[in-house]
């Protein structure tokens, strides 16, 4: 028995004049769905936020991080896996199977990111004896999408330095950014897959904390000022059941043209569909927990309406 409930997570955050997730093969432009004009943020960007929060701010061990030795050599996945052998010299004494099992056990007990998101870990005893540990993550996020069409802005400026020696002028820099994007992520925490990675209820609570506070504390030039706006987790008591696609049930409505929106207060978050579907499923739901930023203008009173429908709803305080 690992976690008590299956749950679904809805997470909404926004950014102003920044690049929430650049495409490395497209001039680092923010990713935009050309058909709908909406901004896309990959699941791996969100998971990086969560991992960095656990590691940098909470001091927890995570599996996927850059580790360099004194010569700036970056560690590879096989070497990283061997960090989790109690004594690296043991490698010759252990059989491949024992080595695999030791690494699997140690990684699961020490790395919260593997318990949450899973990992594929290559194991190599020698050139001939190779194996791997494959763990499917119980927590899976879909790619995030903005709840409105976004405007792509191209900015030019001067850099601080010249591009080479004996130049008299400073370089120019150019970048793409979004004046505003309200991004919605949806994910599932699967109780059955959780057994394989020994995910605990505490880990899930820590994930909620990391989504909220990790987003807030993301300090890099292109991501600064990101604000978590809404976090909802629906925990189910009905076995093997979840509603699905919660991200389709929340809408952002504004009188302004989509591309003209610059602030969360310039629109309303409409929970009508979400409330209706949660109410329809209330017999299957154990509880709903949520956190909402003070500047969000909800069209419906989420907490009041859900408790009127007889749902057990609690507020998360971060």
């Amino acid at each position, binding site marked *: 028995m690992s976690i008590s409930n299956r749950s679904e997570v809805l997470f909404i955050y926004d950014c102003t004049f920044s690049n929430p997730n650049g495409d490395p093969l497209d001039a680092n432009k923010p990713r935009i769905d050309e058909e709908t004009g909406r901004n896309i943020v990959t699941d791996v960007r969100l998971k990086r936020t969560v991992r960095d929060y656990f590691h940098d701010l909470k001091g927890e061990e995570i599996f996927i991080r850059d580790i360099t030795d004194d010569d700036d050599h970056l560690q590879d996945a096989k070497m990283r896996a061997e960090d989790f052998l109690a004594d690296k010299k043991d490698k010759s004494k252990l059989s491949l199977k024992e080595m695999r099992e030791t690494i699997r056990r140690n990684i699961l007990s020490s790395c919260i990111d593997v318990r949450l998101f899973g990992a594929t870990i290559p194991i190599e005893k020698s050139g001939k004896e190779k194996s791997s540990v494959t763990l499917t*993550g119980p927590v899976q996020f879909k790619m995030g999408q903005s709840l409105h069409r976004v405007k792509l802005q191209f900015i030019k400026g001067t850099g601080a330095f010249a591009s080479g020696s004996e130049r008299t002028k400073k370089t120019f820099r150019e970048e793409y950014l979004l004046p505003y994007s309200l991004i919605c992520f949806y*994910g599932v925490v699967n109780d059955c897959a959780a057994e394989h990675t020994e995910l605990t209820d505490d880990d899930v609570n820590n994930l909620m904390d990391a989504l909220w506070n990790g987003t807030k504390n993301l300090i890099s030039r292109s991501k600064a000022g990101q604000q978590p706006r809404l976090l909802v987790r629906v925990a189910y008591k009905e076995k093997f059941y979840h509603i699905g696609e919660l991200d389709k049930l929340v809408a952002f409505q504004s009188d302004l043209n989509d591309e003209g929106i610059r602030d969360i207060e310039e629109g309303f978050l409409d929970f009508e569909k979400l409330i209706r579907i949660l109410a329809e499923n209330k017999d299957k739901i154990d509880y709903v927990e949520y956190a909402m930023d003070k500047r969000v203008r909800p069209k419906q009173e989420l907490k009041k309406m859900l408790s009127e429908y007889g749902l057990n709803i609690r507020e998360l305080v971060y």
Partner: protein
Amino acid sequence: MKKKLLIFDLYGDYAHFRKYYTTTSPLTFSIIPPVTLMGVLGAILGLSNENNLYLETLNEAGTKVGIQLIKPVKKFRMGMNLINTKNDYWVPKHRTEGARTQIKYEFLKDAAYRIYVSMDNEELLNQLKYNVSRHKCVYTVSLGLSELLADFSFVDARDFNWRENDSSFIDIVTAVSMDDVLQGGIDISPGSRYLKENMPIKMDSNREVTQYSEMLTETMGNHIKLKINGFWESHGLNINLL
């Protein structure tokens, strides 16, 4: 000949079904390959992927599937920043490939399929029907990659009858294996877009593909008029099972 079929819809915002012959640029098939569908059925049923047990169970159950496209095929490409895990150690500064590697992925957008499933093992099919009709799945369902989460909804469960070909053109709603299409048997209609793709159809329990076939799809989600060896029919709905 009569068969009980479960019909359900499977859909998601994005999908990626990697083509087997691309080693560096991950291109996607235009529709969900039957072998990928086995994984989806395994996730709904909660069959273990340890030693590919789900494949063994589904193959033993005589699982056959039909795939109908219900939204037009749309593809787009996006760059992904992956971690470079090659070689034991490397110096990003000295090596051209660097610590990260950027790969352009091809994705399907707004993927949606109507899936037809038949099994010889009635008990397993009933279990699948039970889960699908109550919107239950043991593991999380996705379309090709774990982050491309998908959803499903029950449509119907009903009997289909086998019909032999009488050499007339038949309206088929599912993708069809070219092996089943007779010589000159495609009635090309204007406005439709046809696509043939060589796809893995069946996989044994070692995940080795045992059958590839050329699949014919109409990429706008229209029916195809075909002369075909035989097909399954119910209330005027004609499908092909793989």
